[in-house]
């Protein structure tokens, strides 16, 4: 790259600042979006890289095939799977991780934490980075505990906590444990939570009645393989293994593999196991690529437009002996310098905007030049290569000018019809992308708004969930006493208990329900998702009764059975309430027709006494499950307490409820969440991604405007004389303005026409993931095209006005 290249590059900024800045800013914005979104993509696809064993480790996933239920792959297994698999395949190396709530005592204070009950070799299996202690032996004894450096600081004020004791309460009671190791904090890009870890003891396993219950999901089971082929070989044997182990657990007519498929999921794939989430991340990555492509299109567009203005320079250089190759090298050199500078500006923009991106996108991204140097170098190389490929066309266009023709003409060449059409086509492409992005943006916002406001079948506002009610340390007596106490609070309109919880699937159970005379089969009979609810549950939720009646403690038949000695006899018929969807699944012609009908459910006889409206508790993308409710005056199966309140702000109500809790259960940490906050975990990722997309779309629109402005400015500069002539011949300024604007907006209108069907397809595809999706309105397109036109008009309007205002005499002297 010669001195003349540097001079030309430098002078482009001092002599043609508008063109140079348009070109540079367009590229910089595109590169910034590309860097930011590739940073996001890299973050999302680099989960669990903290473990050097990541690529060897697989986790057990499963897939159920129950009629009417989704068959997505989930991560998790029953507790005893490891033993059963080791018995069948003795060479396997595996560990388990069972997350449990735990209460940590520090003086009189109690703290709710999460502990991992793991096999003794867990730390060395994952090669967990240790600060103090030996990973191989730290969890060998039941009274040892490993904690993270953050938790060591929290409870001991130092990370050097080995040998100190800590008191925990969980289902095994209140015990003191000796700290045997301190683990380094894991980075942000992990789904693993390693705050506390202790040994999963045989006693704890034997206390768990579902430990070998095929169909239950309790914990995570990991296996390590030297190479992926071993995993694939084992995976191929799973159906036979499942059939052997499951036996007739799912019924005599169904093989285990008809109902359950086991999967070995690579640890690296776990974070994005949900295809929708993966698609969202890939889509955002694509937005980054599109932004870069738009910026490069801009570069080509502006560079070829400017090529005409540099034609005379090219001609002179050629007469002085420059051959086309030397000229191309010079122009490519200028492009390389522009790209390099744009990359640095783009990188700076990313640095400056990362706090904003993190805030609106709910992210934790950061640029670490030491550890990410190679990756950034890769991005730079990619940008340079892509940019230099894009710059080939302008370089060839420039170097192809014929000096004799250029020097003989007083006009600057425009690159001929092909050049003009190409530039217009590029602007069309840019604006088509902008219109598609606008349509999607509007669609995203409307769908997110709909999710947040839609009728879910229950009243989500003013509803608090006290989740500490399911803490294993809470006794039934404490639960009942607390419920009684808060019912006495004047602001508590209703309080109830149950495990049918919005946005909480901790105690989800599914079973078949069979009408008399119908086939009783796990693979054929309808499956319902069932929950246990206490008195006033439906009244509190605001659930609409469709037919029959709600539960009432006065009806003895409403009380569900218990498996303990106090329970009702198995021969009794239990009253249940089902949802409207269950009515359809069970084949009743109407909700009324279902009332009084009996069925076989979970090896019991049940009678339908009521039908309630479907309630959407889970992700808007998930189908609402067919639901069955059992009644228990004192539910004991992981219930939370529901509080419907009035007359106080949420913080004030929380404070009051906490006061009562402290009185009733001082040794158990108080945990509470509002239903709206709990549901927000489903909406927030969509909202965050929509925000990121909107930023990307906004910048794409900006780049498109830069391209349009560049083209309009170039065309105007070439048409000054024509405009002067038109005015001499009697055209008014307004007519000239209308003529110019009409011509400038032509590519935008063509782009809109081309973009609309593509935008419709893209939006339809995105909406198809939602069970409760909005309808696509023609207004989305009208608004998007309108916005694109207004932006385009704002971009070129001033230019058209200025050109049309030039005095004819001056215009005719223009060269």
């Amino acid at each position: 790259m010669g001195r003349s290249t540097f001079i030309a590059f430098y002078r482009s900024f001092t002599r043609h600042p508008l063109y140079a800045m348009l070109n540079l800013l367009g590229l910089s914005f595109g590169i910034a979006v590309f860097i930011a979104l590739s940073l996001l993509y890299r973050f999302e696809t680099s989960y669990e890289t903290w473990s050097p064993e990541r690529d060897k480790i697989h986790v057990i996933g499963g897939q159920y095939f129950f009629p009417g239920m989704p068959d997505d792959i989930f991560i998790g297994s029953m507790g005893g799977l490891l033993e059963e698999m080791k018995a069948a395949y003795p060479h396997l190396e595996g560990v388990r991780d069972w997350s449990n709530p735990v209460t940590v005592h520090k003086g009189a204070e109690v703290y709710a934490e999460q502990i991992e009950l793991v096999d003794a070799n867990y730390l060395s299996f994952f090669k967990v980075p240790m600060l103090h202690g030996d990973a191989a032996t730290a969890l060998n004894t039941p009274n040892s505990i490993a904690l993270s450096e953050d938790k060591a600081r929290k409870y001991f004020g130092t990370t050097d906590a080995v040998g100190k004791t800590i008191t925990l309460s969980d289902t095994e009671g209140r015990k003191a444990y000796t700290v045997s190791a301190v683990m380094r904090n894991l980075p942000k890009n992990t789904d693993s939570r390693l705050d506390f870890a202790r040994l999963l003891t045989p006693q704890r396993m034997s206390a768990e009645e579902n430990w070998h219950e095929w169909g239950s999901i309790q914990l995570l089971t990991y296996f390590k393989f030297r190479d992926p082929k071993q995993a694939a070989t084992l995976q191929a044997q799973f159906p036979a293994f499942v059939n052997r182990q499951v036996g007739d657990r799912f019924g005599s007519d169904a093989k285990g593999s008809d109902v359950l498929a086991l999967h070995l999921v690579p640890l690296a794939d776990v974070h994005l196991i949900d295809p929708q989430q993966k698609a969202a991340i890939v889509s955002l990555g694509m937005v980054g690529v599109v932004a870069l492509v738009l910026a490069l299109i801009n570069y080509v567009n502006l560079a070829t437009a400017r090529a005409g203005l540099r034609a005379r320079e090219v001609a002179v250089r050629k007469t002085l002996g420059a051959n086309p190759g030397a000229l191309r090298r010079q122009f490519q050199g200028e492009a390389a310098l522009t790209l390099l500078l744009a990359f640095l500006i783009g990188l700076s923009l990313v640095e400056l905007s990362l706090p904003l991106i993190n805030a609106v996108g709910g992210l934790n991204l950061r640029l670490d030049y030491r550890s990410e140097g190679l990756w950034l170098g890769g991005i730079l190389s990619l940008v340079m290569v892509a940019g230099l490929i894009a710059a080939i066309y302008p370089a060839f266009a420039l170097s192809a000018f014929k000096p004799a023709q250029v020097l003989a003409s007083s006009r600057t060449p425009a690159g001929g019809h092909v050049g003009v059409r190409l530039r217009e086509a590029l602007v069309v492409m840019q604006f088509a992308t902008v219109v598609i992005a606008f349509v999607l943006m509007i669609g995203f916002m409307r769908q997110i708004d709909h999710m947040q406001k839609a009728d879910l079948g229950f009243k989500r506002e003013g509803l608090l969930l006290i989740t500490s009610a399911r803490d294993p340390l809470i006794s039934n007596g404490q639960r009942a006493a607390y419920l009684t106490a808060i019912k006495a609070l004047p602001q508590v309109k209703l309080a109830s208990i149950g495990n049918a919880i919005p946005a909480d699937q901790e105690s989800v159970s599914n079973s078949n329900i069979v009408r008399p005379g119908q086939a009783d089969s796990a693979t054929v009979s309808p499956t319902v998702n069932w929950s246990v609810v206490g008195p006033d549950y439906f009244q509190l939720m605001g659930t609409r009764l469709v037919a029959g009646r709600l539960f009432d403690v006065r009806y003895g038949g409403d009380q569900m059975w218990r498996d303990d000695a106090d329970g009702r006899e198995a021969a009794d018929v239990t009253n249940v309430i089902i949802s409207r969807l269950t009515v359809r699944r069970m084949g009743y012609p109407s909700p009324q027709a279902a009332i009084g009908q009996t069925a076989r459910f979970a090896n019991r006889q049940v009678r339908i006494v009521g039908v309630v409206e479907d309630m959407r508790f889970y992700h808007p993308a998930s189908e609402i499950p067919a639901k069955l409710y059992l009644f228990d005056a004192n539910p004991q199966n992981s219930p939370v307490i529901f509080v419907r309140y009035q007359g106080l702000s949420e913080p004030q109500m929380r404070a009051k409820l906490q006061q009562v809790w402290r009185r009733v259960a001082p040794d158990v940490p108080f945990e509470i969440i509002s239903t709206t906050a709990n549901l927000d975990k489903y909406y927030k990722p969509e909202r965050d991604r929509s925000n990121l997309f909107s930023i990307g779309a906004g910048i794409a629109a900006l780049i498109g405007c830069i391209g349009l402005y560049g083209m309009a400015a170039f065309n105007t500069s070439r048409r000054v004389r024509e405009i002067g002539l038109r005015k001499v011949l009697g055209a008014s300024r307004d007519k000239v303005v209308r003529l110019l604007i009409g011509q400038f907006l032509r590519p935008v209108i063509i782009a809109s026409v081309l973009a609309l069907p593509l935008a419709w397809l893209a939006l339809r595809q995105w909406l198809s993931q939602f069970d409760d999706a909005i309808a696509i309105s023609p207004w989305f397109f009208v608004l998007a095209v309108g916005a694109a036109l207004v932006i385009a008009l704002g971009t070129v309007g001033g230019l058209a006005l200025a050109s049309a205002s030039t005095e004819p005499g001056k215009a005719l002297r223009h060269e």
Partner: protein
Amino acid sequence: MIELKNISRLYRSDEIETTALHDINLTIGRGEFVAIMGPSGCGKSTLLNTLGTIDRPTSGQYLFDGVDLAQLPETGLAKHRAQHLGFIFQSFNLIDDLTIYENIELGLLYRSGQKGSRRQVIEAAMDRVAIGHRARHFPHQLSGGQQQRAAIARAIVGEPDLILADEPTGNLDTENGAQVMDILHGLNAAGATIIMVTHSPSHADQATRRIDILDGQLVTSVARVL
């Protein structure tokens, strides 16, 4: 030095075929100062462009020191221009974004075998046309006469064998025109071969030979003794 044999140049568009040069035969010796005259559109500039190898003849032979330039590829012609030719244009054709120094430097950029340091050579060329005091200025900051002197410095900085001047005084007033002619005379006296297209009979009279062209054909070629 230069021998044109049966040179013709046709321009073809969809419907029209225009003959810009028709069967030109011309020999020019080293050290000559040739003026080409003729009415507008007669083919003067086409002839000059052909001599400058920025336009290729449709037919005929162009021998430069015995080498047939018609046979050379584009890169060969570019090298020929860099090594042997210097151009002076009516509209100066200085590059707006480069300073006068940098514009003159362009005359060396694509040329090999330069004698002495580049700076010295450029300064010497600027001194020959008395433009050294404007070295750091941009073209638009100079008068027409100064711009043309700078363009001449660019043309001669590489000490070319042949200087091609296309109406070098056409955009200048009488005084500046005379200055430019003086410089060309000086260059010719120092041994440079000059071919100049001009509309000015008085400037043409200052050349050692005058060639008249009409409708693409050579009408007269008159050698003069000055």
